[in-house]
């Protein structure tokens, strides 16, 4: 048992470190380091602009999407090399936010199901950051039950015509392409009538509307499709196979190692070390210590769980299921920590101004943002189902709509 790199890993790390040292946008380092709890604050820059610049540089140096094959813009790196790269990229990894869905989900799906022409045309530009991709799966009536989606794609000659609406689409407003799942046959059970496509987000009939979120910010979008034409050459997988194609996409999402998950523990530790209560510093209070210690132990548990996964990758093994707990644990913890941080501030905890007294309002912001951590990318409940079914081997839910043609499934509760 040790934490050391193998000689090859050490050599790779050294190469990556040198390159990063020579090329990273160091002028942003301080601001990026200060961006905590999943929020990126850059005073004078747009995250997409500086992100694209960093991505392009990485691409030119052969460090973008590095686990992809070389012919599609990657480096042909091993999974452990990708992890090492992420560790070395450090705070600059925050700049990759606009490209994560493309690299983690859309790209791998195109790689698995796209034609050779499509792969050579689209993947290198995705890797270089020149073109940003988004994922168009969720709908107002199809969230956890994504197979219940309504957006229709109808075949007209060599094209498909799409009508409907998607929602919760991160980055749709700056994306160039989108991965779209749509219903091509409403007369068969819901999982069987779906087909996967990709499309140009600038196509006529695509309308992107930002959603004002509960936390007051606008990171997600609604995307409306009105008679949008998609050539059949942009279909991924067979007609009616969209569900199994989507599983490839989602599996890739879950394979990504959650090394960058925020837990809120370092921020909370610092906060409690500085906050004065009536009887002294908060961290000397018995109740505070108890909660803080429990969170710290959970947070280190997550860290060393990811180390176990990395070790499996290092040995060339398939990681075990343990990594599936990351988002479930960190999402709830962030929310609990934010709530308690405000409790410790007493009545002043209600204030959201960015002054010193509220620690720049970081926990208030966290409180308002944390519900989304427990929903996006699989709700806590879906994640528990996945653990129960795939890890513990418990039976799946009884699905009353499984064999019912899609157009016979009830659409209203009452």
């Amino acid at each position, binding site marked *: 048992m040790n934490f050391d790199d193998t000689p090859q890993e050490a050599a790779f790390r050294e190469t990556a470190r040198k390159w990063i040292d020579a090329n990273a946008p160091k002028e942003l380092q301080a601001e990026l380091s200060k961006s905590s709890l999943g929020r990126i604050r850059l005073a004078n820059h747009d995250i997409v602009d500086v992100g694209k610049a960093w991505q392009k540089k990485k691409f030119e140096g052969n460090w973008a999407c590095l686990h992809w094959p070389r012919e599609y813009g990657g480096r042909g790196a091993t999974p452990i090399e990708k992890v090492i790269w992420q560790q070395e990229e450090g705070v600059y990894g925050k700049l990759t936010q606009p490209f994560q869905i493309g690299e983690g989900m859309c790209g791998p799906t195109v790689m698995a199901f796209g034609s050779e022409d499509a792969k050579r045309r689209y993947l290198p530009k995705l890797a270089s950051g020149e073109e940003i991709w988004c994922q168009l799966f969720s709908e107002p009536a199809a969230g956890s039950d994504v197979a219940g989606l309504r957006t229709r794609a109808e075949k007209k000659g060599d094209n498909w015509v799409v009508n409907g609406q998607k929602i919760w689409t991160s980055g749709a407003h700056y994306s160039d392409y989108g991965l779209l799942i749509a219903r091509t046959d409403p007369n068969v059970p819901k999982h069987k009538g779906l087909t996967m496509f990709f499309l140009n987000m600038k196509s006529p009939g695509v309308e992107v509307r930002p959603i004002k979120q509960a936390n007051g910010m606008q990171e997600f979008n609604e995307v409306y499709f009105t008679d949008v034409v998609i050539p059949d050459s942009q279909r991924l997988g067979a007609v009616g196979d969209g569900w199994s194609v989507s599983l490839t996409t989602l599996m890739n999402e879950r394979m990504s190692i959650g090394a960058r998950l925020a837990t809120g523990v370092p921020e909370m530790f610092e906060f409690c070390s500085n906050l004065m209560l009536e009887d002294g510093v908060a961290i000397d209070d018995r109740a505070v210590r108890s909660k803080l210690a429990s969170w710290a132990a959970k947070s280190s548990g997550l860290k060393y769980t990811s180390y176990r996964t990395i070790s499996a990758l290092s040995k060339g093994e398939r990681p075990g299921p343990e990594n599936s707990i990351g988002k479930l644990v960190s999402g709830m913890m962030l929310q609990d920590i934010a709530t308690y941080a405000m409790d410790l501030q007493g009545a002043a905890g209600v204030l959201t101004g960015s002054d010193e007294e509220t620690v720049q309002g970081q926990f208030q912001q966290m409180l308002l943002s944390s519900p989304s951590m427990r929903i996006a990318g699989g709700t806590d409940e879906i994640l*528990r189902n996945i653990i*129960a079914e795939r890890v513990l081997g*418990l*039976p799946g839910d009884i699905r009353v709509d499984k064999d019912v043609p899609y157009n016979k499934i009830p659409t209203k509760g009452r």
Partner: protein
Amino acid sequence: MNFDFSDDQKQLRDQARKFLAEKCSPKAVRVVLDGKAPYDKELWKGLAEMGFLGVAIPEEFGGAGAGHLELCVIAEEMGRANAPVPFSSTVYLAAEALLIAGSDVQKKKWLPAIAAGEAIGTLALFEGKGNPSPKNIKLMAANGTLNGVKKPVADGAIADFAVVAARTGSSGRESDISLFLVDLKAGGVEVKNLTNLDPTRSQAEITFTNCKAELLGAAGEGWSILTQVLDRAAVLCAFEQVGGADRALEMGRDYALDRIAFGRQIGSFQAVKHMLADMYVSATLARSNSYYGAWALSTNAAELPEAAAAARISATQAFQHCAKNNIQVHGGMGFTWEFDCHMYYRRANAMALGLGSLSYWEDQLIDRMRKKNAA
């Protein structure tokens, strides 16, 4: 990075699991649970024969000289099997104290006997309510004799010797405390069995009256040695707790698959599935923290104090959580004496207190994190 046990260590785990499945069935555990024996003597003998008691004891002192990672692997299996033997008292506490602070003569006297299954040892630390603290130690040592009362002492009634924490000064500092080695079969020792939460592991009150004792380690060094012993034992106990948590989770999962209600397996209801998923989450966090503790223990790393506290907290919470919800998944049957659920529930809650309670270790973790941050 190789943050995992080696193939040899995994093989040892399989070997221990197989051995315990044969020699330490729930039926065997119940013999002790029902008070028909103070501990499982046959099993203890078998553990010695397998070399498990001395796995981390150097060869020159009669052990296998394998190491602490090997001991962690065995500890997990002991927890899984809910073994009714004084393993933690003897191997994690008494033997570790001897290894850290014992003289060559002391080591030669006791360590080979431990490895051979001929001596049971324990740590006599507590004196009634309260967590580990120099202030709570009132038992006096003067001129090589001890006077005072220790309780609870795990396995005190079956132990041959004890490491006793005693007061040798009154300055109010940690240096007031020294450790002593006491042959419990000699004079000046009165042992009384106490009833406790987990009858598969006995607890005793020991009264020392002008009892002859020899120093273990230097005078005034007792608290510092004790802190090291507790940290090391915390990691080893965490592995027992992880083993117990995993077993409780498995029992719950198996029952959820077998039991039919409302015309379906109860494991198909989300209320039950989510409870089991949360148990898996706790057990996984505990395992990962314990692995880190194992690394720190086996390499004697500077990180050991923090790693031990995190492992202790995480494993205590996981075992309590899994044992409690295992009963809940079983419903009424889980609350019967006949089903094994309560044995894990008892063990989980007893283990949560043995080295100092959860709040004590929470305190320790924060102190140690602060120390690191300040450094």
